[in-house]
């Protein structure tokens, strides 16, 4: 590996090797012989406590997202199938948000159902009533998770919710 000289072919790859500015800034050196640093136990505990605090409020604020999802679903119902793309996309967006939240706050079932609904909305087919029924079934189980505060894997209640969702999907997908 060399520095380019006159008459040499134009380099195809240029490299930039910068000093480790972040390490220097967070007080763990940054020079070539610097030891790696780590997060202190105290800082980790503080952050965990903040997540735990937020988890207590999560069921309250996630209801807003579920209500928004319900409103988009209603908007889709009120339109003919060929005009439902916009609200269905919005449903997908909200589902994706829900997927990204639940697990952080101790509600992994919200992440699971949110992910399932998101994947389900990634379709190009005409959005007929049966698709909206499936979306509604997802909304219903997510509401149940939050109303009953089904945290963690949810035990037998979680299993029942998954089962009822599977049955709804089969029923309305015509399987």
């Amino acid at each position, binding site marked *: *590996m*060399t520095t*380019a000289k006159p008459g040499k072919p134009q380099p195809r790859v240029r490299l*930039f*090797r910068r000093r480790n500015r*972040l390490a220097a*800034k967070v007080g763990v050196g940054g020079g070539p012989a610097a030891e790696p640093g780590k997060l202190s136990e105290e800082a980790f505990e503080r952050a965990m406590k903040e997540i735990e605090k937020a988890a207590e409020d999560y069921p309250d604020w996630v209801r807003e997202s579920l209500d928004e999802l319900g409103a988009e679903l209603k908007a889709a119902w009120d339109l003919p199938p060929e005009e439902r793309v916009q609200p269905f996309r919005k449903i997908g967006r909200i589902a994706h948000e829900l997927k*990204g939240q639940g697990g952080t706050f101790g509600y992994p079932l919200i992440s699971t159902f949110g992910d399932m609904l998101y994947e389900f909305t990634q379709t190009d087919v005409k959005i007929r009533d049966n698709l909206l029924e499936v979306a509604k079934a997802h909304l219903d189980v997510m509401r149940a998770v939050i109303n009953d505060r089904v945290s963690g894997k949810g035990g037998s209640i979680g299993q029942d919710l998954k089962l009822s969702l599977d049955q709804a999907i089969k029923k309305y997908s015509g399987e």
Partner: protein
Amino acid sequence: MANFDFGLLSVLVAEDNQYMRSMLRTVLRALGVGTVTVASDGGAAIEILRNLKTNPQKAGVSTIDVVFSNWQMEPVDGMMLLKWVRRHKESPDRFMPFVMVSGFSDRKRVELARDFGVTEFVGKPYTINSLMARINTLVNAPRQYVLTADYFGPDRRRNRETPPGPERRVIAEDEIEVIYDDR
């Protein structure tokens, strides 16, 4: 091993969900990050970054060391923000560490972000452990930056080991130029 002291660190968080934005800000503050600036989407983040050079008072902060961004945002998403940071002439630092925090965690999406120069990727839902693992890598294992005809960003090959399949990086020694080295 010394403990990180994030007191001097300045982080920009771009997240359109107000609760998740507030959560990430609170977590970063709890980890000891000195300054956390927030933006409600990629466009607001670009405005802050643009003002860093020309009008720091308007930006509300004098420097940004790391960006944490959600991917799915409207009207300007995290990928547009990443592209702007890496490629735009008004970017205050094209080498800025950029962490994508996203529920788009399938391989295809992660590779897309990598090919646009993302530094680290945190899948949502995140945990403190997953967040910290990425911060550890940011600080302890920074990579050289690579500029080619179609890429600018951290070296996409993290490890020096021999690849499992055939070597795809076929390039002569004199086709590589070290532009900058202050390590």
